[in-house]
């Protein structure tokens, strides 16, 4: 990336190559979070092996709790329960709770559950999560296991409409993909244009955690960043020649139409600690022709937290895929490279102490 010379009047997006897009997509896909899953001790059957009821897993951010249930079941049957107890395990009665007693949204991607929990922690005054700002440097986050309690019975039905299941999860996932498609283009033609085998295939990519299977289909619906057409000065040929397209070729213009900078809005949601989810339009390019950036998006929607200009530093920080991103990150780039597998860029806003 450092070979792109000294000219700074090109927006950074000019230099997004297919290689860097693939790199960030791979990084997002391979992201994992540590989970510590403990069965509620009160629900362990009489003959179970106590002391071993904790299961540790480095779970993919793009996966879902119901997809971990088969693995959990095997662990419980092998290590914790005796045969009699194992026979009566009913997964349809299982539900997950955080250490603080909050019912977990099993239909959310695991990465979002983790980041959402992290920002809730940031808002508690006696928070154990250490987030220090230093002078002008980004806050540092400690990555600690998210402690979950797995209950095997008596779901809190007044809050849980539906027990966790892989099938229901699949539908939630497909629904989010379609919504993201609609947000981008105002229609869902790209999703509905997929054959049934492809629609099933993209979910199988999640279930099996297979990057290639997932992106084989996702590449048909998720836009990519295209180098902006700049007839006056093409990118330096030295390192870009392997990837850059000739500026005047027709296929590029056709691809531009479907590119990440041409969507009508980037599918993005803002999560506040223990608070509402804000969803609003996020155009990729502002009216003045400049790209929409994370800092612009945040200071528009949360002006009291993200002060944008002036001497006062921001009162909050944005987490995307568990990372605090540079404020100049372009929204369109986020949509193309760091969205979740369900198509949505989830920005979790934590508070600085």
């Amino acid at each position: 990336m450092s070979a792109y010379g000294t000219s700074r009047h090109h927006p950074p997006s000019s230099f997004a190559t297919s290689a860097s897009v693939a790199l960030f997509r791979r990084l997002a896909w391979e992201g994992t979070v540590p989970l510590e899953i403990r069965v509620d001790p009160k629900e362990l059957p009489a003959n179970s092996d106590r002391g071993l009821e904790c299961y540790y897993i480095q779970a993919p951010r793009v996966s879902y709790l119901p997809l971990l249930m088969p693995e959990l079941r095997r662990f419980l049957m092998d290590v914790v329960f005796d045969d009699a107890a194992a026979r009566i395990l009913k997964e349809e009665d299982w539900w997950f709770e955080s250490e603080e007693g909050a019912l977990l949204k099993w239909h959310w991607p695991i990465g979002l559950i983790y980041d959402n929990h992290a920002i809730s922690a940031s808002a508690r005054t006696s928070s154990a999560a250490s987030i220090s700002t230093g002078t002008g440097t980004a806050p540092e986050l400690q990555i600690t296991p998210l402690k979950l309690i797995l209950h095997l019975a008596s779901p809190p039905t007044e809050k849980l409409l539906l027990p966790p299941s892989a099938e229901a999860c699949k539908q939630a996932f497909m629904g989010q993909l379609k919504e993201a498609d609609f947000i981008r283009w105002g229609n869902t033609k790209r999703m509905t244009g997929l054959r049934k085998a492809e629609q099933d295939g993209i979910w199988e990519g999640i279930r099996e955690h297979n990057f290639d299977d997932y992106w084989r289909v996702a590449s048909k619906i998720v836009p990519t960043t295209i180098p902006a057409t700049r007839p006056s000065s093409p990118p330096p040929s030295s390192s870009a020649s392997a990837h850059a397209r000739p500026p005047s070729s027709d296929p590029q213009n056709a691809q531009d139409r479907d590119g990440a900078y041409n969507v009508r809005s980037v599918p993005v949601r803002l999560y506040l600690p223990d608070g509402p989810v804000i969803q609003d339009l996020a155009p990729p390019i502002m009216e003045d022709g400049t790209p929409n950036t994370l800092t612009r998006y945040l200071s528009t929607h949360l002006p009291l937290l993200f002060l944008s200009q002036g001497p006062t530093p921001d009162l909050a920080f944005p987490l995307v895929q568990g990372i605090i991103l540079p404020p100049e990150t372009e929204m369109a780039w986020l949509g193309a490279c760091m969205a979740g597998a369900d198509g949505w860029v989830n920005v979790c806003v934590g508070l600085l102490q």
Partner: protein
Amino acid sequence: MEESSLEPIDYAAAAATFAGELLCHQYVVLSPTFGVPTFYFSVHDSSGTPLTLTEVLQLPLFHRDAFEGAQVTTFSVEQSCASFPLLSFGDHPTLNVQCWYLHPCGTKAAVEEILDATEEGKAGGEQRHLQWLRAWFTLLSSLLVDLRG
């Protein structure tokens, strides 16, 4: 892996199974994605337990033919030709609860069809919004028995 089961809606085994009252929460919320009003709801029995989708569909809440020919699973009502389920579960946009909702993606077209068919529907400005909502409720009442419950 759980399999979706094809179940015809059994109206004979209806609400007589529920002793006591049922509480139905109904909401009309703007869908942040589709930008149209969307109908969200949940139904609970007197102990606070939510009804399953099958039980919900047996209630005299929806018209009998509202979901004619549709496929019912534990989590949705689908039609094989449609790209979205007719009825699905999801997060209420503001209340942090899970609800069932009628999928809104076909709403805009259907409402505009209604508006085009009437004189009042051709109004402009604020009147247009009012007529739009009226048409939306007309559409909803073709599925729900009586919105006043």
